[in-house]
């Protein structure tokens, strides 16, 4: 694609509130950035931290979770469970070198179509400013050192030449 | 324990409204607050500037805001209604309009200044009611102004278009404040009606009519004095009696700053509070109820 880079945001929306709010935004013909892909779950409590990691690892630049406001969970307290996991996950992601703006949890009720628009627009802008996360590309870049080395082995010269000849490249500077 | 506020006097408080500053400073001192005047403040941007070029007016205001932020106290006090409004309006524009924000940031950058939007601009009424509290104020009262009938007059700019600390149509903070120092508040429906503003200087006839309406209604409702928060209101209501009398007969009622009344209640002297500067003098206060000794 020759155009400007577009952030890719995967969103997990609770069926009862945020998903419905996004429907409302549609019915109200609100306009917002086209960067979010929504995956519908029955409750923000269903958001397994694995989903968030998996989405990031598969190329999402950010993940948005939309749940019901405190006290308003359709299933009593699923949103609290989501919040607790989210808080530790956020810290862990920071330790893993992922900016905290890349995961966001918002309480959006079924009536808040406007908020869906605002949050998605805000997040798109934030991530656009932050730039790509690009984990799949990083995986590929990391594994280049192996491919380069495998080529040496294929040529049958790996252990016969000084290691400097087949030493892995210094890592490209990280952003 | 003193609380420090940044203080933006604006031109009025150094000129026609100097009685406001003269009463404001000692009253705040008595309440344990220190006002630190911005060094090298400039025009707030009101009136002429605002009328000709709003963005330039905001640039002027933002320089003051930037200085206040640099000074580092939590809040900036702007007693003059015009200053209060322009400074707040600028803050709103900074938050809401990326275009204006861009111009302002560029202008500030040229003089190596920045403003992040942190320091809120507060009106003395807001600070007294919401930061200091009526209980504290009551404690400082040495001479309650019992029996003094006051018409509370707020003018337009501290409640319009933004009504951050009081009701837009029926503000009551000054009522509560003056009640706390013993005054009797007359019900005054013209609290926020126009005082004539700068019309008195350019189109005197409608301007004076505005002032006269307020004076007449205050007299009709039996007020001894009109209390105001705005230098321009005070000027219009107090300064044109002569012209008003020529046209509509005498409408003699003093118009004073609420801080002057507070000063009196705190036991400060009339001269000290700039009360001698008004054209219509206040009548002597009703004799204080004979205290114990």
């Amino acid at each position, binding site marked *: 694609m020759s155009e400007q880079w577009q952030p890719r945001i995967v969103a997990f929306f609770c069926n009862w509130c945020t998903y419905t709010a996004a429907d409302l935004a549609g*019915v109200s013909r609100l306009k917002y950035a086209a960067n979010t892909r929504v995956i519908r*779950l029955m409750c923000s409590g269903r958001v397994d931290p694995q*989903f968030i990691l998996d989405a990031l690892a598969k190329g999402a630049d950010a993940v948005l979770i939309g749940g019901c406001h405190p006290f*308003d969970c359709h299933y009593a307290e699923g949103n609290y469970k989501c919040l607790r996991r989210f808080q530790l996950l956020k810290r862990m992601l920071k330790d893993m070198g992922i900016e905290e703006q890349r995961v966001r949890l918002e309480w959006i009720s079924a009536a808040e179509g406007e908020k869906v628009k605002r949050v998605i627009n805000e997040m798109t802008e934030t991530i656009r400013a932050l730039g790509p996360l690009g984990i799949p590309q990083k995986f590929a870049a990391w594994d280049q050192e192996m491919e380069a080395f495998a080529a040496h082995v294929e040529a049958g010269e790996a252990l016969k030449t000084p290691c400097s000849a087949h030493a892995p490249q210094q890592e490209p500077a990280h952003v | 324990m003193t609380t420090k506020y940044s203080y933006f006097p604006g031109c009025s408080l150094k000129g026609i409204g100097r009685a406001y500053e003269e009463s404001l400073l000692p009253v705040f001192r008595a309440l344990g607050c220190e006002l630190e005047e911005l060094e090298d403040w400039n025009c707030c941007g009101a009136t002429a500037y605002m009328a000709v070029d709003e963005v330039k007016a905001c640039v002027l205001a933002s320089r003051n805001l930037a200085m206040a932020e640099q000074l580092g106290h939590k809040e900036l006090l702007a007693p003059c209604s015009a200053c209060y409004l322009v400074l707040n309006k600028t803050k709103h524009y900074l938050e809401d309009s990326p275009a204006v924000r861009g111009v302002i940031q560029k202008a500030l950058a040229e003089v190596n200044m920045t403003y992040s939007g942190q320091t809120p601009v507060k009106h003395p009424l807001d600070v007294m009611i919401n930061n200091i509290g009526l209980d504290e104020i009551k404690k400082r009262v040495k001479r309650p102004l019992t029996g003094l009938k006051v018409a509370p007059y707020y003018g337009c700019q501290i409640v319009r278009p933004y009504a951050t600390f009081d009701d837009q149509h029926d503000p009551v903070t000054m009522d509560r404040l003056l009640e706390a120092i013993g005054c009797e508040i007359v019900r005054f429906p013209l609290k926020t009606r126009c005082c004539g503003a700068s019309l008195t200087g350019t189109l005197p006839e409608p301007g004076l009519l505005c002032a006269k309406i307020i004076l007449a209604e205050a007299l009709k409702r039996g007020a001894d004095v009109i209390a105001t928060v705005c230098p321009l209101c005070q000027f219009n209501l107090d300064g044109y009696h002569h012209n008003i009398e020529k046209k509509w007969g005498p409408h003699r009622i003093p118009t004073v700053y609420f801080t002057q009344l507070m000063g009196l209640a705190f036991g400060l002297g009339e001269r000290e509070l700039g009360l001698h500067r008004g054209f219509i003098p206040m009548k002597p206060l009703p004799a204080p109820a004979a205290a114990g000794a």
Partner: protein
Amino acid sequence: MDKPSKSNIRIGFYVCHCGSNIAAMVDCPAVAKYVETLPNVVLSRDYKYMCSDPGQELIQKDIAEFKLNRVVVASCSPLLHEHTFRGAVEAGGLNPFFFQMVNIREHDSWVHTDKAEATAKAKELARAAVLRVAQHKALEVKKVPIHPDALVVGGGIAGIHAAMTLANAGKKVFLVEREPSIGGHMAKFDKTFPTLDCAACILTPKMSAVGTHPNITLLSYSEVTKLDGYVGNYTVTVKRKPRYIIEDKCTGCQDCIVNCVYKEPKFRDEFNEGLGKRKPVYIPFPQATPQVVAIDPKTCLNFRNGELTNKCKKSCVTACGEKQAIDFNQQETFLDLKVGTIIITTGFQTFDAKRMPQYGYGKYPNVYTALEIERLVNTSGPTGGHVVMRDGKTEPKSIGIIHCVGSRDKKTNRWCSRVCCMYSMKLAHLLKEHTGAEVYSFYIDMRTPGKGYEEFYDKLLEEGVHFIRGRVGEVTDWAMSKEEMEEGKLIIRVEDTLAGYVRRIPFDMVVLATGMEAQSDAQDVRRLFNMSCGSEGFFLERHPKLAPVSTFTEGIFIAGACQGPRDIPDTVAQAGAAAAEALALIDKGHIEQEPNTAYIIEEECCGCKSCLPLCPYTAITFDTGKKKAVINEALCKGCGTCVAACPSGSIVQNLFDDDEIFSEIQGVLAHE
């Protein structure tokens, strides 16, 4: 790209144009063409209206012809048409859950402005569904029997009508009302627009019918405090507040009221909006249903601060005599009801006029709210229908009615309350009729859509009511000049936008046409019944057009002004609709439950108990013999919280299992 199709999965994909709703912003043929290249897709079509009969038949025909075993439809929100398409897939001979829906209307074409971006998004969402549907399993819909009894919450005209409809169809109904009598706002009205029927004449027969209907259990002075269970099987806890009268023993003779130690009524009469007085023992209004008195512990001498003190002579008890209907020791009691369906008709409250201080309500005595005027013109009202001002004697000679008080205003309520124009005109007519005063009506726009409504407006114009178009700036007692006869009057300042200048008009009486807003405790009620509220605070319907009386909780319906401002005819129509929806459920005998429940794979569970406390429905228990957790699928509501939390991945949620969701993630992200 080579199409790997190692499996025997055969997916049919359909993208809907929805007329131009989708097609205008998403290149549907391009989406269909792209999806054709995805794994396991054997057929990919675009079609004008997928939800239409031909659209559904197309799916069925293709299933047979192309041996499809999975179907994906990209169209509108699944909340709207998932059922429709599942039905079509089932009719085609497949398990209905071999279906996945893609929302490219509400979440795409309607909210984006760049066709290339919207099309790209549609492709990615479609790819996610295609990958997901390959993981789908056949599931069975569970049928749960429905308890035939119904509950109606709120005894206004909506609740009364809904309860009567259900009861007349032979269903047992519990009607819960928190006030001592049913009737709601309508009972306070004098006449109804535009026909000017007497409100009491049309309402009170319905009220007494409710009171005597063998199928209706009326629980007045009661509130719902707890809701358990699920559609078809709700358990409702109702708090019965002590009215200090044994309902069954009270005959409504009112001897107790006559003999109360307070010889004259002394306390604020709620029913008359405080314009009248009542005694501590009272009946709210003559036609109250049930015809049972109530004792207000806040004003009764026998109580202090609501506590029984026995300081009174108890003349009421003496007067009641052998009937022994008075019981000062009555306590709150709680009642558990089993019902299958619930209709919420909790109504509205009027805007508090004090929130607009510029209109002087509460400051100037002769500024009234419309509801006060309803009582004032009412023959059974506090003045017997004699319109006098607060001094109790002077008749107003001039009256100004201000429309849109609290309505259509960013600072208060943004919405139009729909009824104020009409009721303001009704009151203008009645006030003119009662007093002969000059009546002015200040409006922004005159809104009269309804049968006979515009004609009513014409009639008022002929009657000589003055209509001034302009939003009133203020009501003041500040008189500008003696010449204008302003002294001692209330002056309305308004910009007359048709004449083009600002006017000051003096009045004796000002009436504020306050708008309608959600009840102040609507949020509590919403939580209690697991509903949603719109941003304006009214209960949210499932769909504004297609499911206007349903909520997001199955088996709970809403009707009347609790859902939004509306007049009596619309309220009654809606109450009938809600009753019909409930009847449809009850008569079906069972409901089909979405099979999105979770289950634990026994041999995989290690018994760590992490999931046990997470279930709000106590659906997860610990089998102490096997030392493993078990999910009772009948209790599970399918939130999936335990699934996400199971540390060994041993809980599976039907319809939302890990593989399905991971495929969806893969699908929205896989690069082309």
